[in-house]
């Protein structure tokens, strides 16, 4: 792990992103309905570190990635890159910055243009940003291909001729072409087989060492995130509910949702699986169009109390945690405390914690 210091490389402050709901009727006097994808997210990413962002569907993690890299326009809030505010820069002014921040996408089948040859795909950033000749580009592309574990002879092949893992390597090579400072990985291994996942994760870790990269690593798989991240942020319904150094989070999660997430993750260890009391959350994710008042997790939280539905809790350290470990909860879990069905919500029915 490289040293971490100075100004954050990326900073988002009170980021808000609302999507208009298609076809929503605009009632006179009231506001148009929107999907609350992000509602006030503030994060920092330091040079050289890997920030993991974990959340399920609807958490807003992908939207966050896209807002961070200005692939989406933000509704409100600020994005800073390397000290410079980029929230409202024009596309033209943004272009040189694009060399510094790149993205790796989730779908190895969708992220590559099926009608373009692989060499052209990987060389695209070079063609856009440099004046290198075709031959020089080809040489660089082939070097990149070797770097990520591909055969440089396959320069002229089409994406369809590669396997899922190889296509993801192509995506990595493309992201690496301009030697960016930051790479945002949006679920880079979710669509891959387990044995290939490990290869790609190893590759990403190796490249990080070699090129002193900063990663924002987005995933829904906790163990994957744990493996690569220095710090982790947990998101739920458009907000960050907890952020902490990876070890701290997995050892002692404070927020009930983090705890539920950890306990729900299947572990390939039968004795452990049998013995642990799994927290099974009741109910569904609330609608992002009408998020609940107060804490957004309260409707499914076993520890919910009246205070939770009035005002949302602030993201701050609790129980004497260092500043690096923050959670947004009025009743966070103490050290060693596990989430249980204790204060059951009568109106929700008993918590589904039974194991056969």
């Amino acid at each position: 792990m490289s040293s971490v210091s100075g100004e954050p490389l990326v900073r988002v402050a009170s980021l808000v992103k609302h999507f208009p709901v298609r076809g929503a009727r605009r009632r006179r006097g009231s506001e148009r309905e929107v999907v609350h994808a992000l509602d006030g997210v503030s994060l920092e990413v330091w040079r050289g570190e890997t920030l993991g962002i974990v959340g399920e569907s609807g958490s807003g993690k992908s939207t966050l990635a896209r807002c961070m890299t200005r692939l989406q326009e933000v509704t409100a809030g600020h994005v800073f890159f390397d000290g410079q505010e980029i929230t409202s820069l024009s596309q033209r002014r943004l272009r040189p910055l694009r060399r510094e921040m790149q993205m790796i996408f989730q779908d190895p089948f969708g992220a590559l243009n099926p009608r373009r040859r692989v060499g052209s795909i990987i060389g695209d950033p070079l063609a856009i940003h440099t004046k290198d000749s075709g031959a020089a580009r080809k040489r660089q592309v082939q070097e990149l291909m070797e770097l990520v574990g591909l055969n440089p002879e396959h320069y002229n092949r089409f994406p369809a001729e590669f396997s899922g893992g190889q296509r993801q390597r192509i995506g990595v090579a493309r992201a690496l072409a301009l030697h960016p400072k930051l790479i945002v990985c949006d679920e880079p291994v979710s669509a891959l087989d387990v044995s290939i996942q490990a290869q790609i994760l190893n590759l990403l870790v190796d490249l990080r060492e070699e090129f002193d990269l900063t990663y924002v690593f987005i995933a829904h798989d906790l163990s994957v995130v744990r493996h690569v991240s220095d710090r982790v942020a947990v998101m739920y319904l458009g907000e960050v509910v907890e952020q902490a150094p990876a070890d701290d989070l997995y050892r002692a999660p404070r927020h009930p949702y983090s705890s539920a997430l950890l306990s729900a993750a299947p572990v390939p260890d039968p004795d452990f699986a049998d013995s642990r009391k799994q927290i099974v959350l009741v109910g569904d994710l609330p609608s992002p169009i009408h998020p609940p008042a107060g804490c957004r997790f309260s409707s499914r939280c076993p520890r919910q109390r009246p205070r939770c539905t009035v005002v949302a809790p602030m993201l701050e350290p609790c129980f004497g945690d260092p500043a690096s470990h923050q959670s947004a909860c009025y009743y966070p879990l103490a050290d060693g405390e596990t989430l249980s069905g204790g204060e059951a919500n009568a109106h929700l029915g008993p918590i589904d914690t039974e194991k056969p």
Partner: protein
Amino acid sequence: MLKGPRSAEDAWEEETEQAAAIQGRSPWQLAFARLRHDRAAMIALGVVVAIALVAVLAPVIAALTGHGPDVQYLPPIGTTIDGLPKAPSAHFLFGTDDLGRDVLVRVAYGAQVSLLVGVLATLLAVVIGALVGLAAGYFGRVVDTVLARVIDVMLSIPFLLFAISLASVVSVTPIHIGPIVLQQGLGIVVIVIGTFSWATVARIVRGQVLAIREKEYIEAARSLGAGSWRIIVIDVLPNVLAPIIVYATLLIPLSIVAEASLSYLGVGIPPPTADWGSMISEAQPYYQEAWWFLVFPCLALIITTLAFNVLGDGIRDAFDPRATGTRA
């Protein structure tokens, strides 16, 4: 796969190479291979090539028979004593028309006109339609709204009425636009047909582009800092090319028929140029006495249209195989 005393390593190399050999084909190559196996499409392609050859070699046919396309042979060689067309014979393989002209030669020259108009009009329609469709689909919002309306307007103008009016006007008074003179003839026909065909192409392209725009590789291109037109040309266009080609192949016969219709109505290619549409029109009064005069240009038109349509179907299947079953 394994042969005798060779080492396991060699055997292994061979297997991986074999696996690799199965791959290594571009999407275009794959489509082409599929097309080759489509017997109907291959026959259609043969017919199209034959027709093109006939068109190109029309002067040769004229030379071989010794008859020019516009030469009127006087009775009793060209027509009967009563002035009726003469039946097919060794001298006139397809017979003659009401003015004593060789039908075979005229059909051959007619192919020139048909193919030329078909291809040029389609080209015009595709180029304009693709540009409009790409812009409308990719840029969206205002640009899309405006262009989509233009497309709608174009599609609601009745082709035949407008074409007839325009062609009639210029046949009487040629329109001068700067150095260009629009008068009845090939030019106007191509322009008119092209103008009425681009809207459908644009609509198809726009639909495709709207779908492609959401794909991750477009997002990836934007994240790399590519400009809009670069994305359109390099990333979007290759994926839209396939439907464009398919539609173009189906647009050619439509244009040919449109041209024949215009000429049939007298507002297309002016006489005495040999043209299937006008031949059919001229043959109508004689269909009972001289079937050959009507039948041969009709057959030519039908066969050409059919061939292009079958070929177009084959191309569409080659690009987009919804497998109905695997062939062992």
